[in-house]
């Protein structure tokens, strides 16, 4: 290795080396890709000749296919990248109107087509799955039953708790309502009392000579009938 007099010693030479190395690597990668593509074309051709469907060959990094965990909720997909707006092709390569599969770069017009696609071997291979499912042993089945049972009991307990909570909340609400009614009743009573007091005060203020229309009708009637000395007209 020649020293090109870089201030940093070997650095310049290193860079050259890396460039050359990158080029070599790039060429090697391109060659490998070309070989792989050629291999794939050949495999596709052979599969076609044998009347079979071609799948991307497995490289040993695949995982086993597993069952869906829960029902796919397609309503949740609205507004995500999986549901693309209308306008493009249907059931075709690339993004389009409907349900888009990232792994396969395909778009399907509805959830059924999309579901069928996810079940296809083509899709399984594209997401790196084998399309095979591991058999369960009796022990695994036993453990699953136990786990599901525990989960169900847990859910039931939670439901009981939420029920109790709901009952408590309702009790509180009812208590509040009662309190509110009591408050309103008291308020109304207080208002009445104040009004009464005010009326009383007004009468006293006005004195004997002042008469409010209709106010003393009853007294007048009583007087006419020969009764006196009732209520507020005691001074008379």
């Amino acid at each position: 290795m020649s020293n090109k007099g870089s201030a940093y010693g070997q650095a310049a030479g290193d860079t050259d080396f890396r460039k050359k190395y990158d080029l070599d690597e790039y060429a090697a990668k391109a060659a490998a890709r070309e070989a792989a593509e050629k291999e794939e074309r050949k495999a596709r051709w052979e599969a076609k000749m044998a009347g079979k469907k071609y799948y991307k060959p497995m490289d040993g990094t695949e995982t086993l296919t597993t069952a869906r965990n829960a029902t796919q909720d397609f309503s949740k997909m609205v507004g995500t990248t999986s549901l693309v707006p209308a306008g493009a092709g249907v059931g075709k390569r690339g993004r389009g109107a409907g349900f888009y599969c990232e792994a396969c770069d395909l778009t399907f017009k509805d959830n059924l087509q999309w579901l069928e696609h996810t079940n296809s071997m083509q899709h399984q291979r594209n997401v790196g799955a084998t399309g095979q499912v591991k058999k369960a042993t009796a022990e695994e089945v036993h453990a699953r039953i136990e786990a599901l049972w525990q989960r169900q009991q847990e859910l039931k307990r939670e439901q009981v708790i939420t029920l109790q909570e709901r009952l408590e909340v309702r009790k509180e609400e009812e208590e509040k309502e009662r309190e509110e009614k009591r408050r309103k009743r008291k308020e109304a009573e207080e208002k009445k009392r104040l009004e009464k007091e005010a009326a009383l005060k007004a009468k006293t203020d006005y004195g004997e000579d002042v008469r409010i229309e209709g106010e003393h009708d009853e007294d007048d009637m009583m007087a006419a009938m020969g009764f006196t000395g009732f209520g507020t007209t005691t001074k008379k």
Partner: protein
Amino acid sequence: MGDRKSNKPEYHRADERRFLDERGSSGPLAPNGLNPATILEKAVRERIVDSYFYKEQCFGVNEADIVDRVVEHVDHIGGVTGTVQKPTPFLCLAFKLLQLAPNDEILEEYLQFGGEKFKYLRALAVFYIRLTRQDKDVYLKLEPFLEDRRKLRRKGRNGVSLTYVDEFVDDLLVKDRVCATSLWKMRRRDVLEDLELLEPRVSPLGSLEDLLEERDEEMKDGEGGGMGGVRVGV
């Protein structure tokens, strides 16, 4: 019933394509000698693999996942429902079991440990056993559940009705059509007893002979023959 130590492959196909392709003689047969791929009628099979439930909930499912599906999705037994004859989740899962071919050890888990907790899991297991096991084993495996009085909902073409685990088991033992499925013709119990393939069944309520004797005595006493609702027609 004894394929406990079989050398079957460790894996299932996630889908049913190969299973249905093997409807000739190449696929492994059920213990009763039937081809599991053709046990359900063709029209029913087609409706099952076409159904959304089957595509979504039965793909990639193994023997343990079956339990999840039953707990999550099965709240009635039955074959097909409605004018479009939609297969029930129960029937779809039975079809999946035909593909998975669970061994006897697993079936015991479904029947006993799981069946005590989840009645529809027991219902599915007894149905599957009736379809695939030899007649003597069907009697032996199913009869204990003639004591299971838990309620089951049943959906059919005529709507929803109420039944019981014991009644469903009895149907499986005596009827020739259950859940949109023709049941293969088993030998009668007394025939199997004569062949000494089965011991006479001893019900927890007493043997059939005792019950009949009791009835005879009652008849002699002129009290009429009330069987008290005890089912003896096996």
